[in-house]
């Protein structure tokens, strides 16, 4: 597979309006060998990610030599992200922009949609959880967050990196996607590594298995768009 070693330093952006929770999540992430940046609002998060208001649905059609890995949102000439962010973990309840709003904005942006997003909340509200998962969150974690929760983050990063590596390694099948439509498509079972299966087997109420009809590795419509299709 030629994956970067599992102990590569990944960069997580943590978003929470509570100072205590920011301190806690920072410590948890650093203990798990992540690089961490914390911000106290959704708008600061977007700013850090280099998002601009006019960039919704920008087509990701840029020169190959500028893009070496499309899950790293640094591509478009209009946007400039100083640092690569591999995952965003955000609180749900925040004044102004909620975690859900942030998630939505990220998924609407072709520039940011590939960054995995995890939502945290102190409240176990099933409708809230489902809403977030349906909008494309990788995981929903109940607060208080612990080390075991943080250990679940790495597979999400690895998964998104592996999908993009598949694309890059097969240039003849590479499709520059029109990102307006997300169609439900069958995934070829051989294209997904098994490494994420552990995260799929969580039976906790925290996660909803969305695509039961597809291969064991959990997929989301958006990733399906980008997956190599071989006939």
């Amino acid at each position, binding site marked *: 597979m030629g994956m970067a070693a599992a102990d590569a330093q990944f960069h997580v952006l943590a978003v929470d309006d*509570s100072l*205590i929770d920011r*301190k806690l999540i920072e410590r948890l992430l650093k203990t798990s060998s992540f690089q961490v940046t914390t911000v106290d609002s959704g708008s600061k998060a977007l700013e850090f990610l280099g998002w601009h208001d006019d960039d919704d649905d920008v087509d990701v059609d840029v020169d190959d030599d500028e893009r070496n890995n499309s899950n790293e949102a640094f591509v478009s000439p209009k946007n400039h992200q100083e640092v690569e962010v591999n995952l965003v973990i955000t609180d749900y309840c925040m004044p102004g922009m909620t975690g859900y709003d942030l998630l939505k904005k990220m998924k609407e942006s072709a520039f940011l949609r590939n960054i995995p997003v995890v939502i945290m909340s102190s409240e176990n509200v099933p409708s809230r959880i489902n809403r977030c998962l349906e909008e494309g969150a990788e995981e929903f974690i109940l607060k*208080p967050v612990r080390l075991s929760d943080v250990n679940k983050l790495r597979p999400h990063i690895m998964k998104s990196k592996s999908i993009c590596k598949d694309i890059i390694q097969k240039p003849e099948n590479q499709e520059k996607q029109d990102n307006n439509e997300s169609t439900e498509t069958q995934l070829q079972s051989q294209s997904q590594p098994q490494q994420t299966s552990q995260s799929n087997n969580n039976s906790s109420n925290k996660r909803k298995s969305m695509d039961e009809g597809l291969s064991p590795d959990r997929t989301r419509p958006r990733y399906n768009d980008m997956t190599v299709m071989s006939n």
Partner: protein
Amino acid sequence: SPSSNTLITGLSAWQVNSCVLITSASYKLKEKKSFCTCKEICKKEFDCVVGTEERERERERETADVVKQLQRQFIDFSTSLYREGFVDDQFAQLQKLQDDSNPDFVVEVVSLFFDDSEKLVKNLAVALEQQVVDYKQVDANVHQLKGSSSSIGAKRVKDVCVVFRSFCESENHEGCLRCLQQVSHENSLLKNKLQTLFRLEQQILAAGGTVPVLE
């Protein structure tokens, strides 16, 4: 020949004692330091190797006893905090996150908590004093307190917040006031308890021991 003040090593206590009596030209007695305590027979004032070692061992034994005693106190006190519901497992999680590279993590987070909780209690008092109480505002503050108390494992404080929120929802002024009083009380209690805990930790470390980890 050895320089002055050389301690005679490699000899048995008796030999050392005997050597002193020799007081040969090639040795000088050390500056008066303390009486050798290894053997009665040795009346000279010098630093007998054995005496020094014995004194050292005695000191170590005393210190070790002190450390053990403090560690026992620490364990008993910690256990009582959990048993009495002052803290829950989340507090243990915090302690697990502390290490040599972040030796003050727990104290820092706990300080942040008390800064925050004391401020919130003040805000709540003001909010509940108003002619027309804004229960949404009260609830928002309680929600914040509930969140941070939960994050550090402050169980009793968090539990009061849960009840507090339901009184906010039903806009029960009396209930809210009671809860405010309770939450303030629990907050103070916890602060004292944790200060005691941290003090014990410091004493153990100062005595050269390690802080026990509760399982």
